[in-house]
């Protein structure tokens, strides 16, 4: 009961913060619009697949991973820190402190990205897998969970928002760069192509495109399993690293 109360409170905190809401709702839409617009005016948009389709899934993956930033903000924002200190003194386990932030961010991600994908497919007529849309939503959902766990882990590690955010940028940048979401990196030579295999985003991207265009689910389960296991490892690491007494 106590735990649910903390989660609700954290969730309301995110919702009351207009910037965090915009980043997870409007921002992906604008990004898809801008990328699609720019690319189709350079390369001509009359092909059988529009650039809006192409960048739709990529930018959703991009922003879904960046939810890690929202997680670190929910956890370590100046205003929240005071509240956290109170919870530390209260007779609740330390797990509930970081897990509540993780779960509240994850709930926000689940709601906003599911609605976004629905809107993009049925209102803007972008391709998100047609009948397979629910599988894509589940994939993005688990990616959000991974992002949230990563963000929380970095917060536990650095104990302040700016430290967490600025160091987190490094792995996120490498994941996104070598994941080929921003541009195709596989053509930069064999070595880079091998490096891309290390990025989870590459697999998420490939998995989503295989489902959407080939109806091919062969790497769906391994990718989901990998993301889940990675999230669980992050959460276990949080449990070990997070020491509330250092935090006061």
């Amino acid at each position: 009961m106590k735990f649910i109360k903390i989660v609700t409170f954290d969730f309301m905190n995110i919702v009351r913060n207009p910037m965090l809401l915009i980043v997870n709702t409007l921002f992906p839409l604008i990004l898809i619009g801008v990328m699609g617009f720019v690319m189709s005016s350079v390369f001509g948009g009359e092909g059988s697949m529009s650039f809006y389709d192409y960048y739709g899934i990529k930018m959703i993956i991009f922003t879904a991973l960046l939810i890690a930033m929202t997680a670190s903000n929910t956890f370590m924002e100046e205003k929240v820190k005071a509240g956290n200190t109170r919870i530390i003194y209260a007779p609740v386990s330390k797990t509930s402190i970081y897990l509540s932030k993780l779960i509240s961010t994850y709930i926000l991600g689940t709601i906003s990205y599911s609605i976004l994908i629905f809107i993009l497919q049925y209102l803007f007529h972008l391709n998100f897998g047609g009948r397979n849309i629910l599988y894509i939503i589940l994939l993005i959902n688990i990616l959000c969970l991974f992002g949230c766990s990563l963000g929380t882990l970095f917060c536990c590690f650095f104990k302040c928002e700016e430290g967490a955010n600025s160091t987190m940028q490094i792995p996120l940048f490498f994941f996104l760069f070598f994941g080929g979401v921003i541009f195709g990196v596989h053509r930069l030579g064999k070595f880079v192509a091998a490096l891309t295999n290390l990025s989870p985003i590459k697999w998420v991207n490939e998995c989503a495109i295989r489902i959407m265009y080939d109806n091919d689910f062969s790497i769906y389960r391994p990718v989901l399993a990998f993301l889940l296991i990675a999230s669980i490892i992050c959460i276990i690491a949080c449990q070990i690293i997070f020491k509330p007494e250092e935090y006061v």
Partner: protein
Amino acid sequence: MNIINLFKNKLDRVLTKKPIIIVAMIVIPIMIGIAILFSSKPASKETIAFLSSNAQNLPQSSQFTVEVVDKKPTQGDLVLGKYVAIVEDKNDGNYKVTSFKSENDIKVIEDFFKSGKIPESYKGEDQIMAERGVGTNILGFILMILLMQGVALTIFFEEDRNIKTFRRILIAPVSEKEYLFSQGMFTFLCLFIPSYLAVTIITVCFKINIGFSFGMLALLIMLLCALATTFGLFMAAVLDSEISLVASGISMITCVLGGCFISFTDNNKVLNAICSIFPQKSYITMIHGIEKGSGILEFKGQFIYLLIWIVGLWLFGSFITNRKMKKGIY
């Protein structure tokens, strides 16, 4: 004197902030390095999958590699960019081309298989990118990174307000313009020194021709850092929290629209006009011209426009700070 004292204070305080130092001195140079190394190296040619029972005398081209396949690649392979097009041999001199590219590109590929030649005037995506020049591509990318980083380095302005030092500073005989100037000086130096060193060291070590002389490069990066600095100050003055998040979003979108990654002109005049408002557009036009051999004096218009943005953002920033101060917000 005030400015120097404030500046010294910032230098002392930054030593306690290891993440900031790490990002400014290590991460940003690494990102710039990766950008330079990858954009100076030509990408491998795009591959066309050729489905044929008797493949002989494959057409040769400087733009495409033709690979003979036994099994038809899937649509997913096309989307993932493994192949740019699938060509099926109908054995009667005709070819069926499947591709997500535009009608025109498909026509060119079909003719390429029929006649073995690609029209001289045809430009693929890589040619369009290469025409911009290596230096322009690199500086366009650096522009986006530095715009984000400029906001991150304006951290002390935000911190001073949060811990109420800002109020105390302004009670002393220091104007908010002086304060912003010293903060700007700090941000500018932390942006300029690592990024300029990174660019020069990497281009010298790897013998990459970036298309600018070192003096010109210094001037261009200085201009870019000044823009990033005043943008950071302005954003920090306007917003109270989530400054870095919002500024990253804004710089990402305006950089794409301003043509930092790819130059574009749309047929729609209104949209074009909107895009050319962004200072990024003038900057890219200017560096593209300079890389192609024109002197900087030919771009007086763009240069002045950029200066107006730089000074304007600084003045607006201090104006807003002043007004907030009078309202007693800080």
